[in-house]
């Protein structure tokens, strides 16, 4: 066996693994060490959980963290769920044959390459108190002043962020579902119809189980992304509560090096939460699909 025969797979994997290990895991491991107070550059080499303790329990920071966690979970879970439902409905609409289907499908996908920064600004233009919707309402005589329009961006409940995420993610999950639906054709449904299944039964027992894996994998990506997203909450959020990624970046950019440790600790907590939620979700959804 020649050297190449024995080692070709590791050699082929090496460049990609180098990126994953040095940049991805390297960043995570070094970040974890920093969050544990290990900062050899300024002569701190003892390990402690002080930063984590401060974030979770200290009177100055605990409410920033816990309120932020609540907002982050609410916005990411809410946007993911709403996006998945609307994406399924949109895909069902676009699947049928109709005049202008190609154009509609093209326009449906048009926002896929639009970055989240731009999505957030678009929502700001539309939903701010002097935005397009408020002006439309004013034309109809519903509002006299911008302040009469309900606060829907830079609001405490993350409505603006959710609007922005949903706008971005409906076509994203929708395209995945649409591709599955189109590859299925109509055979399964015709079969179900010939066996006497009605409209709802065909949806529930034929279409849904077939598209579910696509919806789940799409929504995992959406959840992980929205939970760790910085741009959208930074543009559409308020001073309190802030989402965890926004707080983490703020602390991290603080000239005070202790705050830096705490910012790092928050982003490690974000990573741990997302990682375990995604694993749990995958496990649950695999089980659910198997049982269906």
């Amino acid at each position, binding site marked *: 066996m020649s050297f190449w025969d024995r080692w070709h797979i590791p050699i082929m994997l090496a460049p990609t693994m180098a*990126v994953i290990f040095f*940049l991805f895991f*390297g*960043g995570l491991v070094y970040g974890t060490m*920093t969050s544990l107070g290990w900062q050899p550059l300024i002569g701190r080499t003892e390990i402690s959980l002080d930063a984590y303790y401060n974030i979770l329990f200290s009177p100055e920071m605990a409410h920033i963290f816990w309120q932020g966690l609540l907002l982050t979970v609410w916005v990411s879970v809410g946007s993911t769920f709403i996006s998945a439902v609307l994406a399924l409905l949109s895909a069902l609409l676009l699947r049928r044959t109709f005049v202008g289907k190609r154009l509609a499908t093209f326009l449906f996908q048009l926002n896929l390459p639009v970055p989240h920064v731009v999505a957030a600004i678009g929502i700001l233009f539309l939903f701010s108190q002097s935005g397009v919707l408020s002006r439309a309402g004013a034309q109809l005589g519903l509002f006299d002043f911008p302040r009469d329009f309900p606060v829907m961006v830079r609001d405490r409940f993350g409505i603006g962020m959710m609007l922005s995420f949903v706008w971005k993610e409906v076509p994203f999950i929708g395209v995945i579902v649409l591709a599955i639906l189109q590859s299925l054709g109509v055979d399964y449904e015709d079969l179900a119809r010939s066996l006497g299944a009605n409209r709802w039964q065909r949806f529930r027992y034929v279409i849904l189980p077939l598209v579910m894996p696509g919806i789940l994998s799409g929504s995992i990506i959406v959840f992980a992304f929205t939970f760790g997203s910085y741009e959208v909450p930074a543009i559409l959020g308020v001073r309190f509560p802030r989402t965890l990624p926004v707080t983490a970046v703020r602390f991290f950019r603080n000239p005070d090096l202790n705050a830096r440790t705490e910012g790092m600790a928050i982003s490690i907590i974000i*990573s741990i939460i997302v990682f375990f939620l995604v694993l749990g979700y995958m496990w649950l959804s695999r089980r659910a699909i198997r049982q269906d």
Partner: protein
Amino acid sequence: MSKSKAAGQAKAASGERLRRGLHYAAVLLLIILLMTPLLAFLFNAFSFRWFYPQFFPNELSLRAWESIFAANSKVPEALLNSTILAVGVTISSVIIGLPAARALGLYSFRGKRIVEFLVISPTIVPGIAVAMGLNINFIRWGLNGNLLGVGLVHLVPVMPYVVLTLAGVFANYDPQFEQQARSLGAGTLATFWHVTLPAIFPGIVVASLFAYLISWSQYILTFLIGAGQVITMPVLLFSTASGTNNALTAAMSLVFVAPAILILVLTARYLSGKSSAIGGFGQI
């Protein structure tokens, strides 16, 4: 008898017409909802002194566009930086990922599932933790605040999609053709150029599309590693958006989005919604 049958048919036909009408209305509503934010950019970009409660701007103006291309504008620099980064990240990620994709697509080996998990792991861990962790080391290695450092960090969210896309192509690839080419006397390079590359070309286009778009849209990684020195389009747009000049923000957004949409339109025919690579859109 025949009369009631005809009536039944007429009823069914009108029911069908109603259903079709509702379907059209729903599609139209969906498209309007998705297009409105994009139209808001056009409104704002050409508006001037657009006072409340005017619905259409009374005065149209090119002021925002003039200031984008003015001598003191940072837009050209930002466009250049974004392009250098995206092109550099695209080329290097494909070169780095190609061998790994081939190994994952063609061979089964011990630990393959672990390797696959490692490759996709950056997609389920938010980038901010990685970028913050790298920040300090990058300062020490002189990679902080320059294009090289920022490009290296962009590789982290890009690699999973490049490798996944190309591995999917290699899974349907027959390496026998390479052996035939070699037995006919073609060298390694000639075989790659004339046999392998044409076969995997569609996959390379899709992988490059995602690499380009993910790098192009990246804000927070650039911000944390670029340390204010590397001005890219998203960085510039973000700081402009926190000001009050809506027209400028809108015009800049259009300049930023146009290349991304153009690239998608040009490469759309290689793209299938079924490929696992489509997940790359979730990172933009």
